[in-house]
């Protein structure tokens, strides 16, 4: 029997392809895009981080999570606490402890700290939530979203309550956005090929057999939960630097559902799917946003009524999932020659499975 090439060598092309494609997008946007377009590009990169983070947990464990946007909230507010100049903080955020009130950290330091903060929080709540399975786990994560949102909306002296906190240095640009997305992709890839990633995917397919194979389901789920919280915490931090303001409304239902639909549209069991979903939906949103603003046809200016964008995205999502229920990538990964071939291969496999059932 021939020696199998190592796992990394078999699979490393996927993250490389993804990162290079995103680099090309960043370069094109930087070179030719308007300022507004570049902001859209940064937003897309941040969404890629969030959705890739979601993929780490949802894709490998098979459990749907409605709670991951709370990690974005945690990361963004932690960055606000760390990066806003002390002069401003002492007016708006009087309730912060003195040591925090007097620190001001640059983005490069504040961002990883924010990620670690979100990860630590996930480690604590995950110990409870990861014991649940199926829909109970999903609803529990939804509860988490509600709790975090409520705390951040109402703890006025520390979070500024419903209002926005201003004054985070606006240091984001397309390149940093790309770097963030690349870091997220590398972490997600390394997790997916790790022991824990393989074990977790086994629990996704057959949890009982996974236990009988010596796998501690709660532990593996918790590891994925913490890793994904770290990625999304970083995304939240960069988002705070991007908008330079934070408010709790940005990290609630709308963001939760749009990121989840990005993941599902792309293909929730693959890293390529996570990235593809974000790029596709972002392009569509941008397209319809421009159509709503109106386009000039000679002397005539045609504009779609406001709100068409949401409706159109919804309909397009439904149509995509009707024809490709496993997402645009059909849960496969991009690879050198593999993708189109795998697609052809997977059909007989699927038929064979049907026959067996």
């Amino acid at each position, binding site marked *: *029997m021939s020696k*199998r090439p*190592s*796992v990394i060598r078999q699979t490393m092309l996927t993250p490389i392809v993804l990162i290079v494609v995103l680099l090309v997008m960043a370069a094109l946007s930087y070179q030719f895009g308007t300022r507004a377009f570049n902001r859209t590009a940064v937003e897309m990169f941040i969404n890629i981080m969030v959705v890739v983070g979601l993929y780490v947990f949802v894709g490998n464990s098979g459990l749907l999570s409605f709670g991951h946007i709370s990690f974005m909230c945690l990361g963004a507010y932690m960055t606000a606490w760390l990066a806003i100049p002390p002069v401003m903080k002492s007016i708006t955020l009087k309730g912060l402890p003195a040591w925090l009130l007097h620190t001001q950290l640059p983005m490069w330091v504040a961002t990883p700290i924010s990620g670690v903060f979100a990860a630590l929080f996930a480690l604590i709540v995950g110990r409870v939530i990861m014991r649940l399975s199926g829909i109970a786990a999903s609803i529990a994560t939804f509860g988490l979203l509600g709790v975090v949102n409520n705390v951040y909306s109402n703890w006025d002296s520390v979070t500024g309550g419903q209002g926005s906190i201003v004054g985070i240095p606006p240091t984001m640009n397309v390149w940093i956005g790309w770097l963030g997305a690349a870091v997220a992709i590398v972490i997600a890839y390394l997790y997916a*090929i*790790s*022991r824990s990633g*393989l*074990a977790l*995917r*086994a629990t996704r*397919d*057959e949890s*009982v*057999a*996974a*236990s*009988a*194979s*010596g*796998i*501690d*389901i709660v532990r593996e789920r918790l590891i994925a939960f913490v890793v994904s919280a770290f990625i999304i915490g970083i995304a939240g931090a960069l988002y705070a630097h991007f908008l330079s303001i934070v408010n709790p409304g940005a990290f609630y239902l709308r963001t939760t559902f749009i990121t989840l639909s990005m993941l599902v549209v792309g293909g929730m069991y693959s890293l390529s799917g996570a990235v593809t979903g974000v790029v596709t939906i972002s392009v569509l949103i941008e397209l319809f946003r421009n159509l709503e603003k109106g386009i000039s046809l000679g002397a005539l200016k045609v504009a779609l009524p406001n709100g068409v964008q949401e409706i159109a995205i919804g309909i397009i999502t439904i149509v995509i999932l009707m024809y490709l229920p496993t997402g645009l990538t059909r849960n496969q990964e991009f690879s050198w020659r593999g993708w189109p071939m795998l697609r052809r291969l997977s059909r*007989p*496999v699927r038929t*064979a*499975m049907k026959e*067996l059932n």
Partner: protein
Amino acid sequence: MTSGGLELGARDVSVQFEGLKALSKVTLTVPRGRITGLIGPNGAGKTTLINVLTGFQPVGTGTVDLEGEVLNGIAAHKLRRKGVARTFQSGRLFRDLPVVDNLEVTGVGMGQTRREAITEAERVMTWLGISHLGSTIAGALPYTDERRVAIGRAIMCTPRYLLLDEPAAGMSEHESHDLAVIIRRIAGELGVGVLLIEHNIGLVLELCERIFVLDSGEIIEVGAPAQIRDSDAVRHAYMGTQRDEVIPALAAEMGAAS
């Protein structure tokens, strides 16, 4: 059989589901390196007993012990790490993963690195003669290959005990003969204590040194194949009658033996 030897045992185990007695005061031991049989009609509690021995079903009363160490309440994955492996009636392969990864998962669950686990998976596949299946997606396997992969997954890192839940279900005579060869090798070459649960009585009588018969949650007979073959209690449990009718599989078996 005395306690404290090299064996996996259930002692006076009772399990109740919502008032229904699934097992009552069951005592069963599986010695290392031997093949023990467990037979009984449908609904007798055989699978419940396997679940008890592998940590999937909490024990009501009584104890489960592994070579002297009491195991009550221990989680299934920890029992596997201690060397108690099992297969499932329904196969339960990781259908989306290739065969080699199906085996590799156990190695990873046992604490190996992925590289070590792949090496071990390849060794086990060679030992079982299923190396050619390595890169096939498990969901696409024919039934008998599925069974062999399930056994391969269970004997990764050579467990101390292996509990086979109806491994021959749906197999032809030829295929179950191949299976018998594998089971003998697992007990003989690897020194694994095997508990074989089967409806194919012929296979059980052929392979097992000692056979336990379970009916309605109780052990109604224990003994060597010859003793089980002649037991009225067993025949009654299976046929539900007292008629002096020989079960076809038994007739074939006795014909072969004489």
